[in-house]
Each structure stands twice: as C-alpha cells, then as structure tokens.
C-alpha cells in the first residue's frame, strides 16, 4: 500500500480541444492537508472536476491513483463512494428535493457501496442533527429544497454539512471560502478542522489566505498554466499574499 492517498502522474486534460492541464504531478499522503493556489484560468477547478469524474473533461494522458486504485475511468458516484468528496465552488439548485432527503440518499448510497446497511430513519435523523448542530444549521433548513434560493454562504455551509455526513477520506474544497462572511468562515472551518484525523486528508483550492490560516495546510502547491510550478511550506502562501503569482510564471 502506497503512503500516498492521492497520486497524480503527468496528467493532461483537454476541455473540448483546448489543453488545460499540461502534465500535472501531485501527491497527497494520508493525514495531510494540502492547498493549491493559482491565478484565474490556471486549471484549479478543472483539476477538482477531473478528480470527481466529470466526463466533460477528457484525460488525454497520465494517471490518477486514489487509495492505490486508478480512478481515471471511474464514474463520479464510484469515485465518491471510494471516499473522495468535492465541495463545489458553485453548488447547483435541485428544486423539490429536500436537504434531508438528499443527505439520506447520499449516505445510503455510500453505505451500500461499502457493503453496509443504511441507517434506520430515527438513527439517521439523530446523526444528521448532530452534524448540522456543528455548523449551526437547524431543522427548518433541512426541510428546504437543495440549494434553492440559498445565498452563497448558505450553499457553502450546506456543502460542508454533506462533507460531515459522508465523512470522506479525501476532501477537495473548491473555493469553499468564497461567499462566506467572517462568522460563517469560522463556523465552516471549525467544522472541517473537527473532522481531521489520521485517516483522512484535505486538498484546499483557494485564492485567499484566510481559509489556509484556519486549516493550517502543511504543503502549498502553486498551479500555473496547467502545471504545478512550485511546492513548499505554509510560507509560500505569505509570499503569494504579498507579491502575487507573477514570479511563478
């Protein structure tokens, strides 16, 4: 068994005919928090979509190993049920589906995929309420339709609730901090910090240092023009905060 939870080797990805990722290499060991920073259009969101199995993006070369399994050809639900979770930058609205119903469905899917019996209704309700409480979400919100009419902050908080309910091995936070006010950022980052254990890892995609200060990543990667151009410690984030990405071209 590899010591890396995620290992990306020489990844090339095209969107329609345009190559976006151009030989990206990245390794994330178990029990580590990494961050990817980069200018607009560098390929950060493309990377998170490819890792989640979005078939709008074509992998033209390279491999992605998650828990030692090549996930390049897996479907999005199969990747998710292996334990990879993406918190979306722009969660979509699903009318008529309540948050509670959605959470129950995804939790059942994961348990079934892993050969476990789904929770009974009352056990699941207790389980969700416990997770929702961490994020300050009350029962009335759980009855609302998924992301319908939500503010940007509410959507991100809802993504974080899904994260707590599914308890994945690798979490990709795709600009989770955008749209959150100071208090909401505190609640969300505390919720995520509380999840950290020896068996999971986090990949934070962000433009800003705020969330990094809360989640303390051990490693920062700089993504420019489809490639990781530099990898370093937390100081790298300070450097970008002060000087921007110009020096990394």
């Amino acid at each position, binding site marked *: 068994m590899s010591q890396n939870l995620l290992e990306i080797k020489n990844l090339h990805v095209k969107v329609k005919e345009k190559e976006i990722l151009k030989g990206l290499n990245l390794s994330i060991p178990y029990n580590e928090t990494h961050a990817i920073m980069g200018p607009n259009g560098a390929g950060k969101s493309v990377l998170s979509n490819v890792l*989640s*199995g*979005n078939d*709008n993006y074509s992998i033209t070369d390279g491999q992605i190993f998650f828990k030692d399994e090549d996930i390049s050809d897996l*479907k*999005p*639900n199969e*990747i*998710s*049920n292996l334990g990879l*979770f*993406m918190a*979306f930058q722009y*969660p*979509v609205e*699903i*009318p*008529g*589906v309540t948050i509670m119903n*959605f959470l129950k*469905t*995804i939790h059942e*899917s*994961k348990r079934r*995929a892993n050969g476990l019996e789904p929770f009974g209704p009352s056990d699941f309700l207790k389980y969700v309420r416990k997770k929702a409480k961490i994020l300050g979400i009350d029962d009335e919100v759980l009855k609302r*339709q*998924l992301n319908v009419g939500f503010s940007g902050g509410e959507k991100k908080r809802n993504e974080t609730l*899904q994260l707590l309910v*599914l308890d994945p091995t690798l979490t990709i936070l795709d600009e989770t901090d955008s749209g959150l006010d100071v208090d909401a950022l505190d609640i969300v980052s505390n919720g995520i910090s509380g999840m950290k254990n020896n068996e999971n890892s986090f990949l934070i995609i962000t433009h800003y240092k705020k969330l990094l200060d809360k989640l303390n990543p051990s490693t920062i990667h700089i993504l420019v023009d489809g490639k990781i151009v530099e990898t370093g410690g937390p100081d790298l984030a300070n450097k970008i905060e002060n000087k921007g990405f110009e020096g990394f071209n």
Partner: protein
Amino acid sequence: MGLEEINSFKKSIYDSNTFCVYKEKIFDSFINTGFPNKKIEGWKYFDLRFKSKSFLEKEISDCFINIEDLSVQNTAHDSYDCNLLFDDYFKPYEFIENEAVIDFNIACGNQIKIINVISSQKEPINIKISNTGVNISLPRIIINLSDNVKAKINFINSFKDGFLNLLIEYNIGKNSELDICRVNKSSSLMVETNLVYLKSKSSFNMNNLSIPNSSSRFQLFSNHIGENSFCSSKTISIPSNESNDDILIDNIFKHSYCESISGIRAILKEDAVCSFQSMIDVKNFVKGSRAEQDCKGFLIDDKATMNAKPQMRILNDDVVCKHGATVGSLNEEEIFYLCSKGIERKQAINLILDGHINSYIGEDRFLKQFLPEEFR
C-alpha cells in the same frame, strides 16, 4: 366514416324521449365536423379517427362508475334523459360548438351519473371508472356543488380494452371550492372532456397525474361565469413507452377579476409522446383577469417527443398574463452534482424528476401512490 357505419351509429343511438330530434341534430353536427374530433387536423394530437376505427362496429355500452365516501346528505344517482332539464342536458353542446367528442357523447351516450354535493365533505369523494369488454363507452358525469360548499374528489380512470369517450361537467356554486386529484391510468383509447362552470368566488383546483398506457386525450374547458372565480389545473404526464398523452386546457374568461393557472410537467421516456395545448381566452368586456400557463417537458430518451402550444387570445387591456414553455433533456450539471456525491446516474435522474414533481404538485399522498415506482 362510411355511410354504412353512420347508419350503424344512428341505429345505436339510445333514445325514447323528446330529446330525439336534438340528438339527431347533434349527431349530424358531429358527423360534419369529423369523427370524432376536429383536432386531428388542427394540431399534433394523435389520430383519434384512425385509432378508433376498430371500435366502430362494436356496441355502445356502459362502463362502471363507482362513487364512494359520499356523506349522507349528498346524493349520487343514475339518470336517463328524462330526469334532466333540457338546458342542463344540452348545456355542453351549446357551450363548446363543433367539439365533436362532446357532440358524440351527447348524441350517443346512454349513461349519466349525477352527483349533488350540497354540504361540505370531511372526506374525499372517490370516483372510479372501469369497464369490462371491448366496446365503446360514452358515459357522462355531472357534478353539482351547491353554494358555500367545500369538497375534494379523488378520481381514478382505469379504463381498458375499448374506447372511452367520457364527459364530465362540474358546476361550482358561489363561494364553493372543489379540489380534484385525478389519476389517469387508462390502458386503452380514451378521451376525457371536463367542462367546468365557475360561479362567483368559486374555485376549482385539479392536480392531474396522467400515466396512460395507450392513447389518451384530456380536455378541460374552464368557464369563468362569475366574478373572482379561480381555476388551477396542474398536470404531471408520464405516458408509458409508445403511448400518447394529449392535454388541452382552455380557460375562458367571461367575467371580470378571475384567475387561472394551467401547466404541465411531462416526463417522457423511450417512444412516449405528449402534446400540451393551453389557451387563455379573455373576452373584450372582461377586466382584471390574471392568468398563467407554463409547460416543462423532460425528454429522457432521444425518441421521446413533446409538443407544446401555449396560446392567448386577449381582447381587453386590463389583464396580467404569463406564459412559457421549455422542452429539453435534463441539465447535465445537476446530474453530475448528484453523482459526484455518490448517487448512481439513473437514481440521480429520478431524484431530479421526483423533485420537479414535488415542487409542482406538492406532497400529494393520494397521487404519489400511483406514480411509477422510481418516483415514489
């Protein structure tokens, strides 16, 4: 339709009373208009003339109209022509000219059921339509709500093996409210025409789940004959493979300050076809009308077909109207979002469609039990 067949039909007209002359007149009108509906030429409805040909030599027979849970003070009874006033009997014919399925029913039908609701109902009235044999059935149901009455009807049409041409009239009294949950799970050729007469401050709400397994046509003509009346008709159409589901909704504003809502959510798989035509018709002397109509068709498979034709004929300036129609496949972004959280693609599609059903007709337990299993 050949002369021999016409004569055969004329012989089959059951009548032994003074209405005979008028029935002949109506029958002639229906023959001139076309058998049995002019709309086969007018728009993209299934060809009723062609489909009903195999039934022409069959007898006209009764179907079963079961009525349950009608509280004591209200009444339901079978009635032949002599028990109806002339005006009541011929009202549909006068109201909708050249609507041949109506003419056909009035001229040839021999089964009439009348339900009089004179006091509010605590429990829903259950009406079920079924049949045996492979004949033509031409039943007519007249539902009268007195003034200041609230009632709910659960209506199930499970006609099979024949040709049903059903005419239902709703006479809604002043300040009265009628809620209807309609389920169409017919599995043979079927036309159902609903005529609604709304007196002042009355309301008519129909949630319609149409899951035919053959060719089915549903027509609703709501006639606002009193001020401040309200009519809502919301349809969920899920015809099975190789089935047609034609829906026509006409809201006719004959009085001021009335409101109507009509629309459809159609979920179409494999070779299923749905046609939705809706009309907002505001007369020139009618003020303060509000109306909206919308149509959403979800094409799940490449061969599925949706036809939509929202129409407005508005002859007065004091009107607020909205209309819209969208037809297409499901949003791939939504499907990916659900799949990326662990849900299989097929289940994700069903969850999205179930959401559209819920957000349109609400959590209606009666209708939900008849939904295809994947949406329950």
